[in-house]
């Protein structure tokens, strides 16, 4: 196991990312970034199996286009961590900003606390590529907007018995994938093309491995979480806007 430590204090993101890439090219197994403060694009487009620990507050687009590595953030993340990520794992020990996991196409993003608006917007899937976003706290409006695939699990662990989810335009324009929300969901939250029903035991087996992995990272008992009732949000149709743009 070779570990490299990089002090990011006062460093611009370009030299920082060059150092990260050099370390990966040198074959290190683990990189610890100290004193990160707002540096964007950390780990972007990075391939391989390296583990990166970020100590501090990274800037936007953490792990964008990333294919393989694991990124552990010891703090909050800014906008769009996991943007168009391809493979790998991002674990955020805190909250993250708007458009978390946007356009994600593979891998897993786990957020311990809350995310901002438009989480998982444009997530997609193809064959074995199925992205997963699990949020321990809450999410704001437009969760899973235009979702074309993948899985979002919203746990709302801040409330023992979650009050009905009440953020507008939930899964608006969804045409693939599914969202699981712990507890009930207000009917008016559902966006165009989204439907909701109570999740079955069979449904829960889909999210079980990811709830388990989430729990391992953040010290929860997965059985406690999985014993709750969940609402499943899914597309009404694979082409919710078909009648809007074409006539057939």
């Amino acid at each position, binding site marked *: 196991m070779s570990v490299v430590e990089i002090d990011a204090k006062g460093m611009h993101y370009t030299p920082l990312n060059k150092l990260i890439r050099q370390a990966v090219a040198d074959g290190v197994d683990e990189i610890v970034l100290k004193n990160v*403060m*707002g540096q964007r694009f950390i780990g972007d487009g990075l391939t391989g199996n390296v583990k990166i620990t970020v100590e501090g*507050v990274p*800037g936007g687009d953490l792990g964008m286009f990333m294919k393989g590595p694991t990124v552990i953030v010891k703090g*909050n993340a*800014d906008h769009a961590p996991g943007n168009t990520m391809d493979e790998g794992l991002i674990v955020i020990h805190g909250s993250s*900003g708007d458009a978390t996991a946007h356009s994600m196409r593979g891998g897993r993003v786990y957020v311990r606390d*809350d995310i901002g*608006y438009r989480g998982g917007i444009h997530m997609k899937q193809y064959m074995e590529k199925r992205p997963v976003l699990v949020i321990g706290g809450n999410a*704001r409006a437009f969760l899973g907007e235009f979702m074309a695939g993948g899985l979002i699990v919203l746990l709302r662990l801040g409330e023992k018995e979650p009050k009905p989810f009440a953020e507008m335009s939930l899964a608006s324009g969804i045409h693939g994938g599914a969202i699981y929300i712990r507890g009930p969901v207000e009917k008016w939250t559902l966006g165009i093309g989204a439907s909701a029903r109570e999740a079955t035991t069979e449904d829960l087996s889909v999210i079980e491995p990811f709830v388990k992995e989430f729990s391992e990272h953040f010290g929860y008992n997965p059985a406690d979480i999985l014993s709750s009732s969940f609402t499943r949000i899914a597309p009404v149709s694979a082409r919710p806007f078909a009648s809007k743009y074409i006539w057939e």
Partner: protein
Amino acid sequence: MCGIIGVIDKTRETMDGSAIREALAIMDERGNGEGAGYAAYGVYPDYADLYAIHVFYDNIVEPKEKVEELLETWGMVEHDEEIPTHETGRIKKVHIPWRYFFRPNRKLMPQSDTPEDDIVTQLVMHVNTKIPGALVFSSGKNIGVFKASGWPEEVADFYRVEDYEGYLWIAHNRYPTNTAGWWGGAHPFNLLNWSVVHNGEITSYGTNRRYIESFGYICRMYTDTEVVAYLMDLLARKHRLSPEHAVRALAPPFWEEIERMEPSEQELNTAIRLTYGQAMMNGPFAIAVASHDSLVGFSDRIKLRPLVIGEHDQRLYVSSEEAAIRTMDPDVKKISMPRAGQPIVGRVVA
């Protein structure tokens, strides 16, 4: 893009400009080096009851004579000087920043119940529309705006913001999109008490501008943010709305949201929407508005721009990025993200 940051010390303990300079500079990526600026409250304690009029002059002959003639007509200049600048970086002094400490003659506007503010407002509008080569960019009491074309750290060093002490600061790093980068187009925008920094684009600018110009304000800076400063002056100063209600007018809830509210809230929000329909702003924005006694942060109704709040004892921070707040205050206690359209207000208590 664009980056914003603001801080208020509710006990009016002052801070020099060095920390906000660092915070704004950490968001350099949000700008393109064509505009940055700072507004600070409490910076002129020796002239606290006079209006501090900051003017950009293209030269100090014709436009300066005309402005001074106007000021002497409407009141008295107790002190004036060139604003100290330091050409250390890339910034060339294409305008000469000057400041006047001005006492309006209230007797000259007997028809107004706020004659001094009204005299200064019409002076600002007159200079900015009728005197070529002069632009008033700051006009409040005991406050100063310092802005230019350049990167945040360059503009800070140009004016040496670390030499000023204020209890409330807002700052902006500009990425001009729809209009050119120039000194007058840099933020903050100010009128009297009100200073505004803005990240985003106000797509309803045409409607808002027609509305505000019907009250005698004139938009001259070729950018949408200017209208926000005038709207705040109209709503909060002239119509005496609280900051919370003024924000409700500018970024109101959707009708569907109003329908779900309690009856009293429903009535209030309906009244505000109906009264101020043309003040409603559309498009993506995150805005911080400063006045003598408050700092207000809010975003558009569907949250198309970032806004982060930091709290630490008597200090409240608003910014585009958490990293900027932590740069200013590494020990900040609480970080949160407000809801779309939700006004976050920090008020002075002393």
